[in-house]
């Protein structure tokens, strides 16, 4: 009897064994694998954005996010009340989330370590933690308009974060691993890794120190001019690399802050007199006049139904082309522009890049307004020649000045030097071709006229001790929303100054625009030129641009100079390199 029972039990076991091993093994193998084999996602880290010196401007750091499984939460009301103080969230909102018929709700994303620890200490049932990558900007809102923002899921939504999102994002990977109890990997078990490809580091042309100083000085300048806002852009004229770009705005409370809108490329304005060098570039290119050509210039001029005046109005005078630029004479400019002709003037402006985007690859870049000649009215030529009736972005205007500084070759402006991979390998950005817009001789003549503007014309406040500076002021009338430019009492202005230095070998071009300055300091020479000068004084030191006297020191190595040991070493090395180069040239020649 017992034997039969034992045989029966043995038979049952045998049948079960056969079922498991022979009849339907795949289902159980799959079930076992599901329990043991885990796929762990490997999140690709978003690449950092750094300045031209490798300083971090934006980078991702791990942060804890708090989530809950409402089905596990025993008392949603009490839990919501306890969490609201820690997470600084609305109680009713938390309560609503914790009462959902769902297995997952976010309670707080990318919270600080202290907050996460406080929630952990609470020990609430059904509350869990997850790790995410948060985007931080160590410099606060500095350069925010250029850098842009990401959303909470680290997707670029504006600025460089948006433009280079695919490069910065990288590709997620995964790890397949066989794990036993307590999550320990089973040796010899399934193990395969597809590594994550981290996002590339984006190297910008910006210089953090210059950017900060530009913001600080522009805020000061806008405050002094009692203006609505302002823009400052700085560029290396030879390469088109933008060294600093900032926009400041006065908010409703009267506080002046850096703006998140990159107005250097998205805002268009009528530039006023700073366009005159471009007009005279056309005049000289077409051999209509030379810098020393003299003509009689009246104080006012009637064209169709409009009257154009110089400020201050003067009796007819004999002025050279250089004098007209130095004194920023509207009437003189119009007279020469009429001799040049509408077609040639329009073509000249097009050559300098007005009316078209600059290929900066920045979202929302405006192309400005330069109407075709066929749509010009009788007053368009004189108006456009002095910078009214034409709209430009600050970057277009600065690029045009960079072309003059660069011997007539217009550089392609850029904000990106290149990218760097995980291993530190640098890939430079493809350099867009520069374009010759005027001959070097004409550019040199225009630059000489612009230098006189700063020496003894309207731009004397832009002088920088030790450096030869060339530039031009602009005080444009701002179009009113009701149409026209308003009458003398209610007229608003855009004051600007564009210039570069040192004249003999320009390495820095800067445009300062002050929007709606009030009071007596509304002109470009008073509102914008001082900001240019202050910024340039700082920038030449930051960029190691030697003054004329310092260059003499380079040529005469034995000369006593007050300097730091580090600077002395730099200058000595430069002098030695120059000496060796000269020796090589002599031998070769």
């Amino acid at each position, binding site marked *: 009897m017992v034997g039969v029972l034992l045989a029966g039990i043995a038979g049952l076991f045998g049948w079960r064994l056969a079922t498991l091993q022979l009849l339907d093994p795949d289902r159980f193998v799959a079930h076992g694998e599901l329990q043991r084999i885990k796929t762990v996602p490997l999140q690709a880290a978003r690449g950092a954005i750094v300045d031209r010196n490798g300083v971090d401007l934006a980078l991702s*750091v791990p942060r804890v996010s708090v989530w809950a499984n409402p089905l596990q939460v025993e008392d949603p009301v009490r839990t919501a009340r306890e969490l609201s103080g820690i997470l600084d969230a609305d109680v009713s909102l938390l309560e609503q989330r914790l009462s959902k018929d769902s297995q997952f709700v976010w309670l707080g994303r990318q919270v600080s370590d202290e907050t996460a620890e406080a929630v952990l200490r609470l020990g609430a049932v059904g509350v869990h933690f997850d790790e995410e990558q948060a985007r*931080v900007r*160590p*410099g606060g809102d500095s350069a925010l308009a250029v850098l842009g923002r990401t959303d909470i899921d680290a997707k670029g939504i504006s600025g460089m974060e948006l433009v280079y999102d695919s490069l910065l994002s990288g590709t997620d990977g995964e790890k397949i691993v066989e794990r036993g109890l307590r999550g320990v990997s089973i040796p010899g078990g399934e193990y395969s890794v597809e590594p994550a490809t981290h996002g590339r580091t984006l190297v910008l042309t910006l210089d953090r120190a210059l950017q900060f*100083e530009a913001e600080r000085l522009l805020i000061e300048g806008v405050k002094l001019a009692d203006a609505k806002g302002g823009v400052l852009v700085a560029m290396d004229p030879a390469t088109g690399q933008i060294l600093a770009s900032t926009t400041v705005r006065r908010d409703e409370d009267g506080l002046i802050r850096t703006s998140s809108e990159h107005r250097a490329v998205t805002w268009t304005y009528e530039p006023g007199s700073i366009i005159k060098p471009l007009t005279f570039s056309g005049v000289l290119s077409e051999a209509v006049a030379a810098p020393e050509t003299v003509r009689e210039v009246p104080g006012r001029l009637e064209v169709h139904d409009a009257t154009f005046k110089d400020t201050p109005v003067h009796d007819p005078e004999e002025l050279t082309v250089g004098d007209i630029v130095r004194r920023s004479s509207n009437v003189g400019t119009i007279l020469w522009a009429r001799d040049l002709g509408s077609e040639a003037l329009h073509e000249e402006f097009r050559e300098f890049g007005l009316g078209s985007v600059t290929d900066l690859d920045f979202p929302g870049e405006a192309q400005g307004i330069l109407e075709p000649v066929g749509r010009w009215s009788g007053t368009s030529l004189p108006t456009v020649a002095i910078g009214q009736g034409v709209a430009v972005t600050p970057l277009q205007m600065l690029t045009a000045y960079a072309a003059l500084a660069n011997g007539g070759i217009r550089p392609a402006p850029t904000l990106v030097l290149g990218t760097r991979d995980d291993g530190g390998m640098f890939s430079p950005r493809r350099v867009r071709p520069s374009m010759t817009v005027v001959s070097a001789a004409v550019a040199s003549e225009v630059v000489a006229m612009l230098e006189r503007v700063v020496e003894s014309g309207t731009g004397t406040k832009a002088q920088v*001790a030790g450096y030869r500076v060339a530039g031009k002021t602009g005080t444009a009338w701002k179009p009113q929303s009701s149409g026209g430019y308003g009458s003398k009492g209610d007229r608003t202005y855009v004051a600007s100054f564009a210039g570069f230095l040192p004249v003999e070998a320009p390495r820095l071009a800067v445009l300062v625009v002050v929007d709606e300055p009030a009071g007596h300091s509304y002109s470009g020479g008073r509102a914008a030129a001082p900001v240019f000068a202050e910024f340039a004084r700082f920038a030449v*030191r930051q960029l190691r641009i030697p003054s004329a006297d*310092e260059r*003499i020191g380079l040529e005469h190595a034995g000369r006593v100079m007050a300097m730091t040991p580090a600077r002395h070493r730099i200058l000595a090395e430069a002098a030695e390199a120059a000496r060796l180069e000269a020796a090589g040239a002599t031998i070769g020649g």
Partner: protein
Amino acid sequence: MTAVLGPERLPRAATDRQISGPSTRAAIRPAVGILGALAVVGFFATLLSLAAFHSIVVSGQFEFDRLQGRLEDGHERAQVLRAEVARLESPSRILEVANGRLGMVSPPARVYLPSVPLNDGPTNLKAPEGDPFSGSTR
């Protein structure tokens, strides 16, 4: 009636008889026993070695997991510290601390000292000959 003789049975070789003899079997038996014992010992020794090897592999895997975890933590920590360094070095934070905690005041104007006096000709000042401090004494 003729008697037919059956085939004569040949005697087996003496040596054969010696091998299969009962005395020989008795001699072999201890050797088989020793071999069997050795095999059993070897089998268990192999099992023990395998267990020991497996234990080493498991502890190695455990150490590998631990180091990988530490590596990931290290990467994260480095990233956090990198952000902190950048924050501490940022000009806005330095200005904030200077103006706030240290009570410093920004100057109304900034004065830059030129590395050479302006309009200073190249021959105005001569570098001292040799080491100007060689004759100095304490």
